[in-house]
């Protein structure tokens, strides 16, 4: 078993735990005009970009210009996580504190910049300093250097499921006694390459000429998703380690389930595989489905993906599904891809702590076929001790995680 004792978040709706929660609770909109690159000629011009990102406030100016956007985002989230958990890394019996980071595209802008230099000015012209940024584990490697993280250092890519896989990976190492403290989370930068690819695939809200130009997750009239960016990093530790240092535990990782089904298998079978991941997570947590108080859905407003997840929830939760509070934060922070699961875990542990399930912004009406009446239109109160996080990728990878409110924190007054 592993617990979360703090986290850092850099998001389109705020920096740090308190701002992030305020944004979620108030239904903040992270969608704004893209400023990182020119969207001229593309069908969409908005994204959940972190427009006022000022990494020097957390990292100082030294060495900053050598860090690309993904690395800056992950480094800021790490600095905030240590502060939130009131923890500083020091050597321990396993070689030190480690880091497990999920990402989908990684520092793709750095890779492309390096390659385009080869194309335009020749292979002898490229700056060797740029080459180390072309490996997908570059952000995690840089964070380890900056913060002296000499324990395990693992980068995980599983599409939109990346950071949920990263959190489960860290939880397993801690549960096995192979690490006392690990950082785990995800990072994704807004990139011109992925953005224009999603535009070309007509996956973004409004990209097919539909009047609804913002993501409306789980809504019957949804037309696509909004791209987001950001980073979330958790401090995870064994309950014993947390107790020893008097840490305030935010949540326990209770169970995890992951499945795969080839994406060409059809929506019905995809849904069954997703439901299987939820059941596996519940089984590993040894909890009954009726005791789950909320689901932070992976749903992002995509026509096919949301339908598969909604049907899967209905199937996995049976009668309980009818009234179960289900919400998505992706109309606020966007589809943050490799960081998405970490954003959802952050939202869910705040739900457990603050007893509020945030609204699914832009959601008005569910597809009646689903039988899900609990999709949140406004922030809803909850007293449940368990929350589920779903991440089901269009490429066939599914994962679900069950979080539990720690017993000792029930009498504590919430922060913020």
């Amino acid at each position, binding site marked *: 078993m592993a617990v979360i004792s703090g986290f850092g978040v850099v998001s389109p709706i705020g920096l740090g735990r308190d701002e992030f929660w305020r944004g979620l609770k108030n239904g903040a909109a992270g969608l704004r005009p893209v400023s990182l690159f020119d969207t001229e000629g593309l069908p969409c011009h908005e994204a959940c970009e972190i427009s006022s990102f000022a990494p020097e406030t957390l990292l100082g100016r030294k060495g900053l210009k050598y860090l690309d956007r993904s690395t800056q985002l992950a480094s800021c989230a790490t600095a905030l996580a240590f502060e939130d958990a009131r923890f500083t890394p020091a050597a321990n019996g396993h070689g030190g504190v480690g880091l497990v980071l999920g990402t*989908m595209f990684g520092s793709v802008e750095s890779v492309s910049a390096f390659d385009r230099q080869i194309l335009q000015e020749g*292979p002898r012209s490229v700056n060797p300093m740029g*080459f180390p940024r072309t490996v997908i584990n570059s952000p995690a490697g840089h964070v380890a250097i900056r913060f002296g993280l*000499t324990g395990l250092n693992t980068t*995980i890519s599983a599409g939109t499921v990346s950071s949920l896989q990263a959190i489960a990976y860290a939880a397993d190492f801690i549960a096995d006694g192979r690490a006392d403290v690990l950082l785990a989370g995800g990072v994704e930068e807004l990139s011109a390459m992925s953005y224009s690819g999603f535009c070309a695939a007509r996956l973004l809200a409004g990209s097919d000429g539909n009047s609804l130009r913002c993501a409306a997750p789980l809504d019957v009239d949804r037309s696509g998703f909004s791209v987001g960016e950001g980073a979330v990093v958790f401090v995870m530790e064994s309950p014993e380690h947390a107790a020893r240092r008097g840490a305030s535990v935010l949540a326990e990782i209770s169970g995890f389930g992951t499945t795969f089904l080839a994406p060409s298998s059809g929506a019905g079978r995809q849904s069954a595989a997703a439901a299987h991941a939820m059941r596996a997570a519940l089984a590993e947590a040894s909890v009954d489905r009726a005791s789950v108080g909320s689901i932070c859905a992976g749903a992002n407003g995509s026509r096919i993906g949301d339908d598969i997840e909604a049907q899967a929830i209905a199937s996995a939760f049976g009668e309980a599904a009818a009234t179960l509070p289900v919400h998505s934060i992706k109309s606020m922070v966007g589809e943050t891809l490799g960081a998405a699961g970490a954003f959802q875990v952050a939202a869910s542990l705040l739900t457990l702590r603050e007893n509020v399930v945030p609204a699914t912004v832009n959601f008005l009406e569910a597809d009646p076929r689903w039988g899900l009446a609990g999709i949140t239109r406004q922030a809803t109160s909850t007293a449940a001790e368990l929350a589920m996080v779903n991440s089901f990728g269009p490429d066939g990878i599914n994962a679900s995680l069950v979080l539990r409110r720690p017993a000792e924190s029930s009498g504590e007054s919430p922060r913020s």
Partner: protein
Amino acid sequence: MSPHPAEPIVVTGIGVVTPIGIGKTAFWDSLVAGRSGIGPIRSFDSAQYDVHIGAEVTAFDPSHYLPADAARHLSRSSQLAVAAARLAMIDAGLPRATASDDQVLGVAMGTTMGEAQVLETIDEDVVSGGLTAVSADLVTRYPCHSIATHVATDVEATGPVIMLPTACAAGNYAIGYAFDALRRGRATVMLAGGADAFSRISVAGFARLSATAPEMCQPFDRGRKGMVVGEGAAVLVLEPLSRARARGAPVYVEVLGYGLGCDAFHMTGSHPEGLGTVTAMQNAFRQAGIGPDDVDYLSAHGTGTPTNDRIETVAIKQVFGERAYQVPVSSIKSMIGHAMGAASAIEAAVCALTVSHGVIPPTINYLEPDPECDLDYVPNTARDCRVNVALNNSSAFGGNNAVLLVGRV
């Protein structure tokens, strides 16, 4: 989390796609013969580059190994990976799509550059036509986890599917992940390995870092001049021993444990004392419950760069003490170059084959001893040697180090 049984996890299948052989038999024969797979770069015109040799899998014809549609549509890293996976499944005697009720098949793969060739095409499109020229299909295929999902789709996996892009240590990471997934009961069979395609980004980058050799790869030799960029894939089949025995599968080795550690020092340069490698070896021994005295063969990361080989030697000595001088250490990168994310997966296959054949492959191109690299590097000629336990070292950009231990069952 559910408790996991202490049942041994074993390797029952090997699939390799390398410059010196596709399939374990051809590959092993070349290794023992000390054959080099390094030659002039053919993937692209290297005239403008500072390096002109590479270790490409020139004999690879995707249509021989993949279904026609996959051979056409998959990009090269995925093609190499799927071919290796199919070879591994055949080697393990696992029919495709057995889908027996209790079989949960998962896939864990590692890579350095992912589908770099896909990105290179996207970049060419953007340079000529701007962002509106970006292809939706290519952007879908670029993220590196597509290598794992392409393998998973081909073998009809239903269990955990994951990509570990931990650069040149990624194969060991992936095998370690598979080992854990099986121990935790999240899967009953795992395919694990690594894949990377030859890319101009790697060739240009390593050349600009002055890390490449002009003519040949000479790990641990005094005159070594650098590494040679390569490509390839390897996939191992892992399963619990009882399941392997029940279906009468061949068993190569048991996975004894693995360890990870990070230099947290420099993105490309090694820590001067090999901190991350030392940590990773120590963690591997701790998990396996054995020590340096038990190791009969060490497959080195051994890239052939002046720094890597010197620091790796320092790290081995620190962990092994006097025992370091008794353990044969070799680097097959002298023959197949550096296959990036596939490298440590290929080397894990070598460790398994070393145990089953009782032969250690050589470090070729070894001409002159280096006083700073003074271990037994099995120079130039394969050696008969009973190997009960083999250690597989790997290091990577980002200071990522992963060490795998396998042993005779």
